[in-house]
């Protein structure tokens, strides 16, 4: 099939490579952006390239059946899914595929395989809908959870080295938020993992598999913009970082899988390359982005900086000697990602505890072998005054019902902004077997030997639930006249997309599942709607001119503010104004500050004027992308006057739905669409002025097959 596709495209190439005489004007009219596009045809082969090389940008045109932007988990899956279906595919990525941020995922993949106990994907569906705080589109969640077992088996067939049980089946462990029997049957063991390096092995497996297919990889090409014409997406324009040439890849189908934008915040678990390039490209194309205000903060991430670590060790020493004289009790906690192994979070300085059980707990020596009970952290946040708030589920092993608890603790360190995660009470062999990745990460990033000392942790940005709005097939949609309308030729999957399976809060281990399921879904829907070898739609001869003008402007930028300074300002603003706990006045102040910072983008100064490996230029382009995402996040957060999932407002603590679900629905008046908040935010940005426009779109409640899997009606979310 691949051979015939190759022959078909070669035939196509023969028809297209020699343009009919007169089709190409020798030079286009000079346009408003001061660039004009020329092609040197065979006739004027002796035309010399002019001397002023610095103001000329060579552009290479390519034609493919499909282009995938991004080569992480979702991008690779989409790329080789398309190649498998016979499409001539290109994969444009600014990083080498195995360096994408998917490699850092630790948790696992949820799938109702039923290896540890009896399981049903409908229970997984229920858990995901509930976890998303009823903001997830139930048709997409139905699709994902039904496809999950098949997806995991497919990965296993590709050679992914899952952890195994004694019988040789895939080992599934417990993970936060997963239950049996629609929430009534206790903890479900549904998370298939590869020790604690699931993302790493997933990405390497997918990369290895993708080499079997003839996808053309454009590695270290930075995608600048989409080529849109008449509301259709016709390809991508990218900058080759290695030699500075511009490439326009025309294709009938474009898939965006560029990942999230964690780097808008000061402390985040994302790589330096998570800069929301895809979401920004879509915004610049005039299309909306969905639910960007929902940013998930992981309760236990590492703080930055080595200097702080030294301080931390000293103050631990102080606290240690005072520990015996502490009159307050110290509890033992278990974090969600390490649950089931017996990990403790050491609290130094507990100020108030809600459940009476805690009073009975005495902190004996740090070397206790088994947990007295476990607390599964589902929420954690740190206030400005150095106080930590932790919410979790207290669970004693076997036969006891889980209790929901919440308490405040004082942070440690000079800025009181972190707490400690203790692992050294566990036998070293168990640590090495079950948690090798975390041991290594703690050593490299925090300088801490986990077999001896606790690790400093604080809530950090971890995942972006929002992104490019798509339907369950992966097609990008806009909302026109009250209805969803598909944008032809554009697809999105992975963290960059919002399908929306995660809604207001993502359950752990669902994001890796989201990558593979929707990566494959994009490939399948493209295969359904087009055939390989179909003629590629044409573009204007000077398509992509604005992107090149922007590139040129940034390359010769000579203002006053460095890129790194502006980026730091933006990150600090976002961290202090749009963090875990949000308040109206603080958010409004943040919106003002960020708008001001956005205007400062015109005053940038770059230092490298070359075009070959110009990382200053690439970082500035990334800053532009981050800024667009940050604006939409904070304006969306300011406008949403309720608390739902990851968006927690101190001044509006309740969830505002169409009915008040804490009371029976009968007799209640349904609130009109404008007055409740169970809807998706669609944000548009006017790139020149930085003005954010917000519109709303209803949540899809109907599943794909009501008889097979009934809609879960909204209810109050409590665990």
């Amino acid at each position, binding site marked *: 099939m691949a051979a015939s596709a190759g022959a078909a495209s070669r035939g196509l190439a023969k028809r297209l490579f020699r343009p009919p005489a007169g089709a190409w004007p020798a030079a286009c009219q000079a346009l408003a952006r001061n660039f004009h596009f020329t*092609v040197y045809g065979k006739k004027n082969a*002796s035309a010399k390239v002019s001397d002023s090389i610095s103001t000329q940008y060579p552009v290479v045109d390519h034609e493919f059946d499909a282009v995938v932007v991004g080569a992480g988990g979702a991008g690779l899956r989409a790329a080789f899914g398309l190649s498998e279906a016979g499409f001539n595919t290109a994969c444009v990525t600014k990083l080498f595929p195995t360096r994408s941020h998917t490699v850092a995922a630790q948790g696992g993949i949820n799938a109702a395989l039923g290896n540890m106990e009896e399981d049903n994907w409908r229970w997984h569906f229920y858990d995901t809908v509930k976890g998303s705080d009823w903001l997830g589109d139930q048709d997409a969640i139905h699709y994902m959870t039904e496809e999950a077992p098949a997806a995991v088996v497919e990965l296993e067939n590709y050679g992914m080295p899952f952890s195994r049980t004694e019988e040789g089946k895939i080992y599934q462990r417990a993970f936060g938020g997963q239950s049996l029997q629609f929430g009534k049957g206790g903890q479900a063991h549904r998370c298939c993992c590869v020790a604690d390096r699931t993302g790493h092995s997933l990405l390497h497996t997918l990369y290895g598999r993708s080499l079997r297919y003839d996808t053309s990889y454009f590695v270290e090409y930075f995608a600048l913009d989409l080529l849109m014409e008449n509301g259709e997406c016709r390809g991508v324009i990218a900058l080759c970082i290695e030699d500075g040439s511009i490439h326009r890849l025309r294709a009938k189908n474009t898939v965006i899988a560029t990942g999230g934008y964690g780097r808008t915040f000061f402390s985040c678990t994302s790589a330096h390359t998570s800069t929301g390039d895809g979401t920004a490209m879509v915004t610049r194309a005039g299309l909306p982005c969905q639910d960007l205000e929902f940013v998930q903060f992981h309760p236990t991430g590492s703080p930055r900086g080595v200097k702080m670590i030294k301080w931390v060790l000293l103050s631990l020493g102080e606290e240690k000697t005072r520990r015996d004289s502490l009159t307050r009790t110290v509890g033992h906690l278990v974090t969600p990602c390490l649950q089931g192994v017996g990990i403790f979070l050491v609290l130094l300085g507990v100020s108030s505890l809600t459940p009476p059980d805690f009073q009975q707990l005495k902190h004996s020596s740090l070397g206790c072998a088994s947990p007295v009970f476990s607390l599964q952290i589902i929420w954690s946040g740190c206030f400005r005054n150095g106080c930590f708030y932790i919410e979790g589920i207290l669970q004693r092993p076997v036969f006891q019902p889980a209790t929901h608890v919440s308490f405040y603790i004082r942070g440690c360190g000079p800025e009181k902004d972190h707490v400690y995660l203790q692992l050294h009470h566990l036998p070293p062999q168990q640590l090495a077997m079950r948690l090798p990745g975390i041991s290594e990460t703690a050593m490299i990033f925090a300088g801490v030997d986990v077999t001896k000392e606790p690790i400093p942790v604080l809530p950090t940005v971890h995942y972006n639930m929002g992104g490019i709005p798509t339907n369950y097939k992966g097609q990008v949609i806009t909302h026109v006249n009250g209805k969803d309308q598909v944008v032809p030729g554009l697809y999105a999957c992975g963290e960059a997309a919002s399908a929306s399976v995660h809604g207001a809060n993502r359950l752990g281990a669902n994001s890796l599942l989201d990558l593979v399921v929707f990566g494959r879904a994009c490939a399948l829907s493209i295969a359904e709607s087009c055939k390989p070898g179909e003629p590629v739609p044409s573009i204007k001869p000077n398509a992509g001119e604005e992107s090149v003008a922007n590139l040129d402007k940034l390359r010769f930028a000579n203002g006053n503010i460095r890129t790194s300074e502006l980026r730091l300002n933006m990150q600090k603003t976002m961290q202090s104004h749009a963090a875990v706990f949000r308040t109206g006045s603080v958010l409004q102040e943040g919106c003002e500050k960020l708008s001001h910072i956005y205007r400062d983008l015109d005053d940038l100064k770059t230092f490298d004027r070359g075009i070959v490996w110009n990382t200053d230029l690439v970082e500035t382009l990334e800053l532009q992308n981050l800024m667009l995402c940050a604006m939409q996040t904070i304006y969306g957060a300011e406008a949403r006057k309720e608390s739902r999932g990851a968006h927690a407002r101190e001044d509006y603590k309740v969830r505002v739905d169409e009915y008040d679900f804490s009371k029976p629905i009968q007799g209640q008046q349904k609130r009109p669409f404008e007055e409740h908040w169970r809807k998706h935010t669609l944000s548009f940005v006017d790139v020149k002025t930085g003005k954010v426009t917000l519109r709303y779109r209803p949540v899809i409640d109907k599943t794909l097959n009501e008889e097979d899997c009934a809609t879960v009606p909204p209810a109050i979310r409590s665990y």
Partner: protein
Amino acid sequence: MVFCLLQTTAGVGPLHREVGPCFAVVALPDDLSGSSRYTMARHSKLQKQVLSLYRQFLRAGKEKPGFLPRIQAEFRKNASIPRMDVMHIEYLIRRGQRQLEQLRDVNTKQMGTFVKTKPEER
């Protein structure tokens, strides 16, 4: 590299031919005395590599519009690199090979340029 070679023999201007500059080396003007053919050093392996790359580029770029002037310009620009700067030359050869692969790829169609028409007011 042929341009570099020609520069070392003073008085011989670069020969402008579109195809196969290596031929320019062989077709030296005959009015030079016979011994001068032997005073000219042979191409080093690296120079041969560059020449072969140039030849391959020209052949591959013939079919697709817009590549030839660009190829020529790039090679001429880099011709002034000193012979001893092997690291740089090898890097450019490797880069050129990757670009050649891309040029040969059936999906690459044409090359154009965005040219700035008037300077921006700063």
